């Protein structure tokens, strides 16, 4: 039957290793997900097309200012461009689909938080592993002296 110190050491070691792995996976995953989303993103002006705006020769009613959106549905992109060459995103289509366009700045911010959290987890896990190793070494030294 293992003594209590052994059990604690094993739990500490296992938990710390898991935290390191999860933390590292989070850091790597944040890069991968962000890069994947960036590949699908571009600068768009969200536009609501109306007969009123077309009467005055406008492409539509701009909704907010141009943003970098992650767009995976090509049907959401309108033909043509805005005044400064920005691509146009169909606001009516997105609202009918219940889609709230994801902004790249939000993805970047969340990725930053994930990397920070993942990095802290790796550090905490590494600390736990070091502590477990020291305890094991101390046990071995105590055991060899007795």
């Amino acid at each position: 039957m293992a003594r209590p110190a052994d059990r604690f050491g094993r739990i500490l070691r296992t938990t710390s290793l898991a935290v390191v792995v999860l933390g590292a996976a989070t850091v790597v995953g944040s890069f991968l997900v962000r890069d994947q989303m960036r590949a699908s993103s571009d600068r768009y002006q969200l536009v609501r097309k109306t007969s009123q705006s077309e009467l005055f020769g406008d492409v539509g009613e701009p909704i907010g200012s141009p943003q970098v959106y992650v767009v995976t549905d090509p049907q959401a992109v309108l033909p043509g461009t805005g005044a400064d060459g920005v691509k146009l995103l169909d606001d009516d289509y997105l609202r009918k689909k219940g889609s709230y366009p994801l902004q790249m700045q939000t993805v970047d911010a969340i990725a930053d938080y994930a990397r920070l959290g993942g990095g802290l987890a790796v550090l905490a896990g590494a600390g736990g592993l070091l502590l477990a190793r020291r305890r094991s070494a101390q046990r071995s030294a105590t055991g060899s002296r007795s």
Partner: protein
Amino acid sequence: MKLTCWILSLALVSTTVSAQTKTFKVGNSPTHQLVQVESVTELETFTGRTEKATGSITFDPTKRTGGGRITVDLASLDTGIPLRNDHMRSSGWLDTSSYPTAIFEVNSVQARANNQYSVTGKFTLRGVTKTVTTQATVRHMKASPQTEKAGFKGDVLQVRASFPVKLSDYGIKISGPATGKVAETVRVSVTFYGQTG
């Protein structure tokens, strides 16, 4: 005789010029107006919008002057996320139960080049009124089969303007979880299509 003719001519010209001032009604149809509030932060840029705005705008296409008053239903502002809409209406933010509307009142218009105007007026939000000066684009179109096809009655006036609003000026303090998610200064943009019919 000469004096009489001169006075009559002056009266005729005055009447003709005054008759150029037209009143354009806003709010007849959901797609004839759009009020937006845009908040830009590091985390997210979001826009709240509503089509519930009513009022009237006067405009003289000859003199290129005018004015107007528009009332906006703040409870109808939609940011795309229902929970955020609820927070926005609450007492710590727009407090729409106490202050259900925002009011734009324009009392000075100065024509610039092309369709550009310098506009000065009063903006009232949450019971606080501030003077605002901004640039506006105003385009006038006489009644025609094209305007009728677009859903208008009579002459049409398109007005576009935007101006910054510092929330703390109107008693709105950003604190707690909203810090960094809502800008201290938001951008209000308006598009109105008024019609004389």
